[in-house]
C-alpha cells in the first residue's frame, strides 16, 4: 500500500476537491467530506513519519517517465529535508476543517486542491513536476482570497497572484537554463534533482539563473524586500487561507531553496549567502518593528509571521548543519505556533466580528481554555524554552554565529522585538478591561478544544523531546551541507568561513 502513498496523498485531495466543485453537494457535506479526506491524509502522513528511517537518501520513491524527449519524469520521494515540511502539510489540515466554517462548498474544495498541490510540490523530486505543482497551488489560493476574503480582497488577490506568478515565471526560465546546461554537459535531458546536482555551472547566465530562482522563492517566503504583498494578502484572506499561506505555502519557499537551489547553484549560493542572510535579518527587524505598530490583530500576526520567516531564511543561508537542521525544525515549529495563531484570530473574528486590538480586552477572564491555548502557541512563536520555537531558533542562531558573528548577533537580539509585540498584544487583548463585545465571548467548544489540543501537545513535545524529530532530519542535512561545503570550499573559502572581526559584505 505504501508504494503509492505519496501519490495518494497528492491526488486524493485534488480529486476530492474537483469532485466537490462539480457535484451539487451542500456546504456541510463538503465540510465533512473535506474533513474526512484530510483525516485520511493525516493518517498516511503519520504512518510515513513513523516508518521513515533516519538515513540520508530518498524514501518512498515513485518514478516513471513522463515526457521522455526532455527527460521529465513523474518522480516523488521524501528525505530528511522534506519530511517535516510534508508533515506540516499533511497533519495540520483537519484542524482547519473542524474549527472554522466557510460560506460555501467551493471554499472547502479549494482548500483540498491547495493541500494536494502543496504536498505535490513538497514530494516532487523532478524540477518540472515541482514547478507544475508550485503553480497549481496558487490557483486555489487565488480563488479563496478573491471569493471569500475581506472587504479589500480584490487588490490583495491581484497583488499576491501577479507577484508570485512573476516570480514563478522567472524560475521557469532559470529551470530551463539548468536543464539545457545539463544537456550540454552530459548529453542527455533530465530534470531530476539528484542528477542535476552534478552540474557545474559558471558564468554570467548561471548567476542570472540563480537570481531567477531566488526571486521566485524570495517572493514566496517572503524575503525582504519582496514581502510587500504579504500584509494585504494575509489580512484580507479568510483566516483558514491565511493559515495555509503562513503555515505551509511560505515554508515551501524555504524548502524550495534547500532542495532545488542549493544543490544546483552551490557556488553562486555561497557567493550570495551573506547578502541573502542579511536580507533575512533586515526582514526580521523591519517586519518586527512594523508588527509593533499594528492595530489589527491579523495584520500584526501577518507581520510577525513574516518576521519569523526571516530567521528561518537566515538558517538556510548559513550553510552549516546546525542552522539547516534548525531551519527544518523551525519550519514545523513556526507552522504549529504562528500558523495556529491565525486560526485563533479567525475564531475570535467569527465570534465577535472584530479583530481590532482596541476593541478587545479581558478575554482571558471569559475564556480561560482559549487564552491558555493561545498563550502556549504565542510563547512557542516567540521561542520560550520548553516549546518548539526555542529549539529551532536556538539552532539557527547557533549556526548563524558560526557562519558570521554579526548576523548571528543581529538575529539573536531581534528576537526580543518579537517578544515585545506579542506580549503587548496579549496583554491588551486577553487582560485589561472587558467590554460589551468580549463579555459575550464563549470559550472553546469541546470539539474545537479537542482539535486544537493535539497541536498544543505537539508544540510542547517538540520543545521537550526534539530529538525524535531532529534525528530523522539530521543525516540528510549533514549530507546536504557536506556536499555544498566540498564544492565551494576551494572557490569561495572566505565566504563560508569568515575570519572574526572581518566584515564580509563585499562578497
Amino acid at each position, binding site marked *: 500500500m505504501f508504494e503509492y502513498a505519496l501519490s495518494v496523498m497528492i491526488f486524493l485531495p485534488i480529486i476530492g476537491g474537483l469532485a466537490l466543485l462539480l457535484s451539487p453537494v451542500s456546504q456541510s457535506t463538503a465540510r465533512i467530506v473535506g474533513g474526512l479526506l484530510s483525516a485520511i491524509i493525516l493518517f498516511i502522513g503519520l504512518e510515513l513519519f513513523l516508518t521513515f528511517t533516519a538515513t540520508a537518501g530518498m524514501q518512498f520513491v515513485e518514478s516513471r517517465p513522463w515526457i521522455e524527449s526532455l527527460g521529465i519524469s513523474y518522480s516523488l520521494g521524501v528525505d530528511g529535508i522534506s519530511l517535516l515540511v510534508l508533515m506540516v502539510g499533511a497533519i495540520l489540515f483537519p484542524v482547519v476543517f473542524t474549527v472554522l466554517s466557510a460560506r460555501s462548498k467551493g471554499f472547502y474544495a479549494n482548500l483540498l486542491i491547495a493541500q494536494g498541490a502543496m504536498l505535490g510540490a513538497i514530494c516532487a523530486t523532478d524540477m518540472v513536476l515541482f514547478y507544475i505543482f508550485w503553480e497549481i497551488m496558487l490557483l486555489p489560493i487565488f480563488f479563496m482570497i478573491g471569493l471569500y476574503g475581506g472587504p479589500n480582497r480584490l487588490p490583495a488577490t491581484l497583488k499576491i497572484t501577479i507577484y508570485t506568478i512573476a516570480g514563478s515565471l522567472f524560475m521557469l526560465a532559470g529551470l530551463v537554463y539548468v536543464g539545457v546546461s545539463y*544537456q550540454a554537459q552530459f548529453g542527455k535531458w533530465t530534470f531530476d534533482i539528484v542528477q542535476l546536482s552534478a552540474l557545474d555551472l559558471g558564468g554570467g547566465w548561471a548567476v542570472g539563473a540563480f537570481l531567477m530562482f531566488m526571486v521566485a522563492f524570495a517572493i514566496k517566503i517572503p524575503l525582504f524586500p519582496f514581502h510587500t504583498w504579504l500584509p494585504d494578502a494575509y489580512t484580507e484572506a479568510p483566516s483558514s487561507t491565511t493559515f495555509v499561506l503562513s503555515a505551509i505555502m511560505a515554508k515551501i519557499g524555504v524548502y524550495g531553496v534547500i532542495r532545488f537551489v542549493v544543490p544546483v547553484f552551490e557556488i553562486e549560493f555561497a557567493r550570495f549567502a551573506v547578502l541573502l542572510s542579511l536580507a533575512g535579518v533586515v526582514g526580521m527587524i523591519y517586519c518586527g518593528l512594523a508588527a509593533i505598530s499594528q492595530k489589527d490583530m491579523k495584520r500584526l500576526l501577518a507581520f510577525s509571521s513574516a518576521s519569523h520567516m526571516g530567521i528561518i531564511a537566515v538558517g538556510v543561508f548559513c550553510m552549516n548543519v546546525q542552522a539547516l537542521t534548525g531551519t527544518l525544525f523551525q519550519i514545523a515549529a513556526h507552522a504549529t505556533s504562528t500558523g495556529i495563531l491565525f486560526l485563533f484570530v479567525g475564531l475570535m473574528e467569527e465570534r465577535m466580528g472584530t479583530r481590532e486590538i482596541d476593541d478587545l480586552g479581558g478575554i482571558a477572564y471569559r475564556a480561560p481554555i482559549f487564552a491558555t491555548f493561545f498563550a502556549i502557541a504565542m510563547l512557542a512563536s516567540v521561542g520560550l524554552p520548553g516549546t518548539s520555537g526555542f529549539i529551532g531558533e536556538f539552532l539557527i542562531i547557533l549556526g548563524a554565529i558560526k557562519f558570521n558573528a554579526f548576523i548571528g548577533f543581529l538575529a539573536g537580539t531581534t528576537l526580543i522585538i518579537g517578544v515585545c509585540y506579542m506580549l503587548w498584544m496579549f496583554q491588551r487583548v486577553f487582560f485589561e478591561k472587558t467590554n460589551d463585545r468580549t463579555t459575550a465571548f464563549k470559550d472553546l467548544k469541546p470539539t474545537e478544544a479537542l482539535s486544537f489540543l493535539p497541536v498544543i501537545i505537539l508544540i510542547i513535545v517538540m520543545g521537550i523531546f526534539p530529538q525524535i524529530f531532529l534525528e530523522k532530519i539530521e543525516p540528510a542535512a549533514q549530507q546536504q551541507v557536506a556536499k555544498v561545503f566540498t564544492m565551494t570550499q576551494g572557490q569561495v573559502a572566505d565566504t563560508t568561513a569568515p575570519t572574526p572581526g572581518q566584515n564580509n559584505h563585499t562578497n
Partner: protein
Amino acid sequence: MYDFTSLLPLIIIGTGAIGLMLLSAYERIQVDTASYVSMGFFGAAFFVQLVVGCGPNNVIFENLFNGMLVSSNFTMIAGLIIFGCGFFTAMSSNTYFKVNSFCTLEFYSILLFGACGMVLLTMAQELITAFIALEIMSLSIYILVGYDRGNISAAEAVLKYLMLGAFAGAFFTLGTALVYGGAGSTKFADISGFVASSGGNTPLLIGGAFLILVALLFKVAAFPFHAWVIDVYDGAAAPVTGFMATALKTAVFAVFANFLALNGDLHSGWIDFLFYISVFTMFGGNLIAIGQNNLKRMLAASGIVHSGYLLIALVAISADHFTGSVIGYYLAAYAAGTLGIFAALSYLGGEGEKRATFDDFKGLAKVRPYSAAAITVFLLSMAGIPPTAGFMGKFYIVTSAISAGQMALAVLGVVSSILSMWYYLRLIIKMYFHDAEESFETVGSPLATTCTFVLVFCVFAIGLYPIVI
C-alpha cells in the same frame, strides 16, 4: 501516385468546398445542414490526414510534385491543427448563426476553401505555390470577415484587411520576382542551394527575402505590421475571428518555418532582425492588450503577443535544430485555447454579440459556473499556467530559445508573459469576484457549448500528454 495520397485530405476539403458551393444553389437546403456537411468534411479530412501521417503505412514524402510541395511530420501536424480548427469553427458557427441570421450556405463553403488554401500553404515549397495558396486563404478570409454586410464594423474590418492584405500580397509577389532574379529559381531548395554556394549576399536576394518576410509578418500580425489586427478581429463574427486567429496563424507560421529552416545562411542573416521583431511584437502586443475593454480586442492583442512567442521559436530554428515540433505544439496549444474562448463567445455573446466587454461578463461564474470554468481554463492555458497545454507550449518555446543560446530572448519572453497575466486575470476576476447583473440566457443549438467542453478536454490532454513530433 503517392503524391496524391499525401494530398488526399486537401482533395477531400476541396471537394467539400465545391460541393457545398453547388449545394447552395438549392433553396431547400438549410444553413444547418451545410454546417453539418462542412463538419463532416473537416472530420473526414482530419481522420485521413491522421491515417496518412501517423497510420501503419507511413507514407511521408519529402518532395511532392517535383519539389513543389513537401509533406513532412511538421506539415502533417500543421494540417491536423487547421482541420481541427475548421471543425470546431463550423461547430460553433452553427450555434452562432442561430441567433445572428446573416448566414447563407456559402459561408461554410468559403470556410472549406480557406482551409484548403491554408493546408496548401503549409506544404508549399516553392514561392509561386505559396503565393497562390496565400491568396486562396486570404480571399476566403476577406469574405468571411465581411460576411455580415449590414454591420458597419464588419465592413470597416474587411476594408482595412483587404487594403492592407492586398499590399502584403503585392509585397510577396514583388519579393518572389526579386528572389527569382537573384537566385534563378522559385523553389526553396534551389534558393537555399544558391545561397549556400554564393553566400547569399546579392542585393536582389536580400531585398526579395525582405519583402517576403514583410508579407509573412503582416499575415501573422507581427510588429510593426500589427495595427490592423485589432479592428479586424473585432469586426468579424466570433467564430470567424477564432478561425482567423488560429488556422491562419498556423498556416503562415508553417510556411515561415519551412522557408527559414532550409538554409542556415539565410536564417542567420535574418536572426537579429527577427530577434527585435519578436521582442517588439511581444511587448507591443502586451501594451495594446492591457488597455482593451472589449474581449475580442483583447484576444486580438493577445494574439499578437502569441505571435511574438512563436517568433522566438523561429529565431531558434535552424536546419540541424529544427524547432518545427515546438512551433507545431505551441500552435496546437494556442489553437485549443483560443478556439475555446471564441466558441464560448459564440453562444454567450448573444444576438448581435451584445455581450462584448469585460464588464458584460461580470458574475458569469455565479450564473453559469461551468462556462466560466471553461473560459478560465482557456485563459490559464493562454497565460501558460500548468497543467494546461499553454504551459507546455511556453516551456518548449523557452527551452528551444535557451538551447539555441538565446537566453536574453527567453527572459524577455518570460517578462512579457508576466505582463500578460494582467489582462487574462482581469477577465477571471470579473467572472468570479463580481455579482451577476444579468441571467446570461442563451438560445440555439448546444453545439458551441459541446465544442467548448471538448476543447477544455483538449487543453488538458495536449498539456498532460505532450506528444512532440
